[in-house]
């Protein structure tokens, strides 16, 4: 259950949203009126949003009832966002970010701008676009850091063929919404929106590449801290399937937020932002190359299939010819 928001969350989200006003390229907040109706993409997006409404923050009282006005607010915020940023449209996961913003800011328009600020200014580009490239790259970066910061755990996971990105991809895409108990989640979001701004003020420097870097760092620090917090428990499990089962819920069992934050911001030092940035560039390049290879293979597979079908048809035709001859 998400509690009443601390003032700092509201101040931060509000700050982020005002900072972004006018920086987006889309049409902005236009209320409930449709902006680009009629197109096929538009209606597909609309349907997907509709399907996810009652599957968002399901344990929260504002969202759990099908008749709750919060669901319609959520629909309008997500729809407006899909017009604001057509390259993303709607990506599953944005529903949770928008819902959290609605809960904390309690205003549709503010929640909309908060979502815009988080997606367009705080998280790196291509995080939610069709190929989710930056999200995938982040997972590789995380695995690099995991093997450096927690080598014993990393080796253990490797031994049991456990790929942490299967679990962590989710955390990053939704910035831990519904992955952590709400008090920890709000603490993390405070850090996500505010701690970074201590390094470089978020309001004045939005758009500056230095800003997103420090903010993004918070998510990595917390992800690694979660593993560190439960490292001994995970090391005890000697079965890959059981480790998967453990990893899918263990974040919800963490109770000591102070300890988690302390691990994130002191045990994980040093955490040079430049290293993070370089890794990300490297993994993005590799991913792009791999994707190209895959596309080529896919094409080959399809061509082969087509050739097979054509050959089969030709054989059928020949058989038909033969039987006709026989007649």
């Amino acid at each position, binding site marked *: 259950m998400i509690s009443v928001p601390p003032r700092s969350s509201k101040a931060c989200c509000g700050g982020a949203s005002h900072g972004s006003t006018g920086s987006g390229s889309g049409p902005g907040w236009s209320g409930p009126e449709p902006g680009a109706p009629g197109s096929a993409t538009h209606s597909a997006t609309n349907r997907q949003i509709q399907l996810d409404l009652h*599957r968002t923050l399901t344990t929260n009282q504002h969202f759990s009832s099908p008749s709750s006005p919060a669901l319609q607010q959520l629909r309008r915020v997500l729809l407006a966002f899909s017009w604001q940023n057509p390259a993303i449209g709607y990506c599953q996961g944005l529903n949770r970010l928008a819902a959290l913003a609605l809960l904390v800011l309690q205003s549709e328009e503010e929640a909309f701008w908060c979502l815009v600020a988080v997606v367009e200014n705080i998280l790196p580009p291509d995080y939610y676009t069709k190929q989710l490239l930056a999200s995938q790259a982040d997972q590789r970066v995380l695995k690099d850091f995991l093997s450096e910061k927690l080598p014993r755990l990393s080796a253990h996971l490797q031994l049991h063929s456990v790929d942490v990105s299967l679990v962590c991809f*989710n955390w990053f895409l939704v910035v831990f919404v519904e992955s952590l108990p709400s008090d920890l989640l709000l603490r993390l979001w405070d850090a996500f929106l505010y701690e970074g701004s201590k390094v470089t003020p978020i309001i004045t420097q939005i758009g500056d590449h230095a800003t997103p870097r420090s903010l993004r760092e918070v998510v990595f620090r917390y992800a690694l801290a979660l593993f560190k917090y439960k490292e001994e428990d995970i090391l005890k499990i000697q079965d890959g399937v059981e480790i*998967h089962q453990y990893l*899918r819920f263990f974040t919800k069992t963490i109770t000591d937020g102070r300890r988690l934050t302390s691990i994130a911001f002191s045990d994980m030092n040093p955490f040079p932002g430049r290293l993070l940035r370089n890794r990300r560039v490297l993994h993005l390049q590799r991913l792009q190359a791999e*994707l190209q290879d895959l596309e080529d293979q896919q094409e080959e597979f399809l061509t082969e299939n087509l050739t097979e079908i054509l050959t089969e048809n030709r054989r059928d035709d020949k058989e038909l010819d033969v039987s006709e001859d026989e007649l």
Partner: protein
Amino acid sequence: MQNNHTKEHLFKILVIGDLGVGKTSIIKRYVHQNFSPNYRATIGVDFALKVLNWDQETVRLQLWDIAGQERFGNMTRVYYREAMGAFIVFDVTRPASFEAITKWKEDLDSKLSLANGKRVATVLLANKCDQGGDVLTNNGIKMEQFCQENGFVGWYETSAKENINIDEAANCLVKHIIASENDMLQAEVPDTITPQLENDKGRTCSSCFRSQ
């Protein structure tokens, strides 16, 4: 090579299909025997484990609940790896989700095959059948023929809500997985063990066997 009573199988099973067709609900029903109308939307992938007793052997099914939104399709190659079977799910009340079935099947077959090159056993689930089967009846679709043409080993009308046919569908899939596993083992024998050898020691291709 001989089966013994302590033998344990682990099968990775994929559950795929369009957004909101009920993949998570089917898994929750199968594994936890319950249903809720509002499970949260799956992001990326989620896991569940079901343990079965099968002919005095233990079968562990690791069910991979894969997000239905198309853009997550980029990662399906990683998710599909080493799976032994799959459910492809559609919602009988949404024709578009049925039309997407062939797309999902193609995606699966282009990215995944068994060690012997064959396609993994796949069962088609027509879910939410408690809400009517208009998609099936109105379009005059002959499901048996559709399954044969598209390489499904079977199909079931299911309802996670009313607990209809979920166990039956799972048993069908497990049966086919075990059959294809036995196929592979038998096919491997002549290639890897020649009659001249005194025992199994000469076997060099251990990686062809599923030992994990």
